């Protein structure tokens, strides 16, 4: 009996040793491969390493994996056309695991161990804020693909998603003109909704709107019956929805169960895109509004091929959405800047990126040299029963990014000191 037990233990020890051995070997491979690509610079040799850092596990993975997919697709496309500066791009993928310190750790690893030329990554503001000091310290380059709350402008980050004046502010103006003055603000309890609502409240004051209610629920909250009752009592013309993630499913289902349809009440969401519609159900969301810079239905030649290729690569049931497209843009914009600079050196690439234009799937985009944000076209869309968006309004031309809302007099108190 005793002998048998110890046999089991020996075999387990052996397994453990094997596991450790495997990881140790992998470890040794790493410096070797970075040596072939040339020690100091990511660009020497015949490959260029680029980092991809999204949450592949944890709560955020549902959103971020699709962005990783589109960035990988862009890299493949660029490689198929001969790469950048005649060199193939080699992606180094890391998992941020929906944990902000992990994002900081992995960013440091990509920059100082793998010596990547640039990093595409992040989704939540918290993950970006965690990575920001690392990129500034090591003078790295981060391309951040998601709309966010603004009030930031790091010299080491390019923001390819919308800032507030390219999504929230025009949406509020449009709603005031077309849907009514009484606003109810509903959001998840974290930085983006709270900051967005602060901006909206200032804007309502300035543009003659009226605030009839403001509620925050924790991330992942699923019981909205009380809030729906409050909404019924407050009788708003518009519910401005900054809920994130699963809460949207619960909110919209319960809204429908309460007998409120898009005909009775306008809701405009800023975090519900094609991917989320798949999860919530198009029948539940039909008629509700969203504000973005890109929809799968956006009618540009570039978008036609983008959607086609994405579906071909990842399956017919997949959809494209704003952050997915912004991630794709980021790779192409970086590649164009590197070609223009003739180097992957961060400072040279930043200089070359100024004023760079590109025909993105969302239409023409241009990098604003001062803020390192993109000029983007604002689009308000209505969910169709098919689960796609019908565009109701767009800004006509790309809007200049204004992360600190300096061009809006009512926003003076928000951007003070910057």
């Amino acid at each position, binding site marked *: 009996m005793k002998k048998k037990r110890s046999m089991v*233990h020996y075999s*387990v020890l052996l397994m*453990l040793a094997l*596991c450790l051995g495997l990881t140790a070997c992998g470890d040794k491979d790493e410096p070797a491969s970075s040596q072939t690509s040339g020690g100091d610079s990511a660009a020497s040799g015949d490959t260029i390493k680029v980092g991809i850092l999204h949450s592949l596990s944890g709560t955020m993975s549902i959103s971020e994996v699709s962005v990783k997919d589109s960035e990988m697709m862009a890299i493949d496309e660029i490689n198929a056309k001969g790469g950048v500066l005649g060199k193939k791009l080699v992606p180094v993928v890391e998992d941020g695991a929906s944990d902000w310190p992990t994002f900081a*750790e992995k960013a440091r690893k990509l920059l*100082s161990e793998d010596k990547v030329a640039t990093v595409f990554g992040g989704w939540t503001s918290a993950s970006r*804020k965690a990575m920001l*000091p690392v990129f500034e*310290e090591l003078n790295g380059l981060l391309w951040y693909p998601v709309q966010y709350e603004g009030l930031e402008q790091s010299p080491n980050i390019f923001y390819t998603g919308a800032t507030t004046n390219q999504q929230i502010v025009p949406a509020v103006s449009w709603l005031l003109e077309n849907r009514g003055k009484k606003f109810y603000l509903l959001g998840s309890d974290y930085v983006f909704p709270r900051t967005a609502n602060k901006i909206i409240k200032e804007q309502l004051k300035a543009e003659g709107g009226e605030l009839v209610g403001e509620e925050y629920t924790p991330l992942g909250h699923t019981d909205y019956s009380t809030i729906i009752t409050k909404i019924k009592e407050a009788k708003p013309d518009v519910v401005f929805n900054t809920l994130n993630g699963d809460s949207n499913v619960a909110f919209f289902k319960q809204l429908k169960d309460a007998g409120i349809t898009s005909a009775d009440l306008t809701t405009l969401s800023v975090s519900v895109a094609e991917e989320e519609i798949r999860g919530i159900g198009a029948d539940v969301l039909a008629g509700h509004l969203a504000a973005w810079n890109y929809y799968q239905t956006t009618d540009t030649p570039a978008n036609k091929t983008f959607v086609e290729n994405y579906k071909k690569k990842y399956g017919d049931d997949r959809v494209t959405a704003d952050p997915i497209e912004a991630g794709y843009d980021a790779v192409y914009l970086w590649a164009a800047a590197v070609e223009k600079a003739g180097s992957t050196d961060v400072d040279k690439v930043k200089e070359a990126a100024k004023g760079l234009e590109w025909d993105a799937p969302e239409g023409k985009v241009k990098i604003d040299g001062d803020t390192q944000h993109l000029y983007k076209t604002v689009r308000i869309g209505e969910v169709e029963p098919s689960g796609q968006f019908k565009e109701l309004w767009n800004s006509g031309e790309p809007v200049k990014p204004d992360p600190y809302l300096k061009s809006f007099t009512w926003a003076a*108190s928000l951007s003070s000191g910057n």
Partner: protein
Amino acid sequence: MKSNPWTAARIWTLIGYAAASAALFAAPLYLSDFRLNLLAKFLAFAIVALGLDLIWGYTGILSLGHGVFFGLGGYAMAMYLKLEASGGRMPDFMEWSGLTALPAFWKPFESLGFAFAAGILIPGLLALFLGYVTFRNRIRGVYFTILTQALVIIATTLLIGQQAYTGGTNGVTGYSKIAGYSISNPDTKQMLYWITAAFLIVAFIVCRFLVASRFGKVLRAIRDGENRVRFIGYNPALYQMTAFAISGALAGLAGMLFILHVGIISPSMLGIVPSIEMVLWVAIGGRGTMIGAVLGAVLMNWGKSEISAQYPDAWLFVMGALFVVVVVFLPNGVAGLFSRLTSIKRRVTGHDQEAVRNPAV
């Protein structure tokens, strides 16, 4: 009969510890900046693990709320670093949240000494208070564990809700200087690494001392039979409270050191998952042995970091499999493996088997 303290095994253990300490202090010689930074972070985790082991491994109280004590320490240091970085102005997130003046409770954190003391005392006192209301009322076992989980939820909700004062979900980040030295300077980082290693060694020695003392004996007696201890005439609550407070203070210390290396503290670091992870380090390393707790924290995190870099899509499965293997086949953790190996060696060389069961390994 007086036992000789200098047995061969003891000398070898001491030599082992001395060698390990030397290796720790020499780490900047053979590790790259990035790896050194990682190791520093793991050493900070090891300090939490020490505290957890004291309370769980030796006293038999399972706390799933150490993330809170860790986080409180982290926030105390973060407040100092943020004020230092803001250079006399209000921290940026307060401005966005509409505050016009620095809240009064932030003011004292302009002093590093105050922040450091607060980072140890606040978690320690909170733990003492929690221990006072629970252990005195003989709340223990799973009920105590559930209370610690509740503490986690209260703390995270509070921190997220009070965005203007705490930075909300983003937490507090963007530091530049500590006591006048640039925090991103490699020399400062090396110094901070040494400070962390020194704190770990001091904490380790203190814990070993505590465990070997009369106090430690009572703790183990409480673990093995609380009522018996009470009947003998001790007041177990007093011992439990003290152990819990020391454990909380160590977690706070670890939190302070952690953010010096990581550069961010956010409510997610206080959450349920990190709190449970901390307990796992101790379980994997081997509870009831101090070196096990340290090894567990360092090896687990090193493994996590390496494996996730190698297999970004599948690393969770690999980690899960390793967990299962350790829990099923090494119930005493990695430290248990050592005593098993010694036992095998002794069996082979024909030594007395009784000595192997010596719990002081």
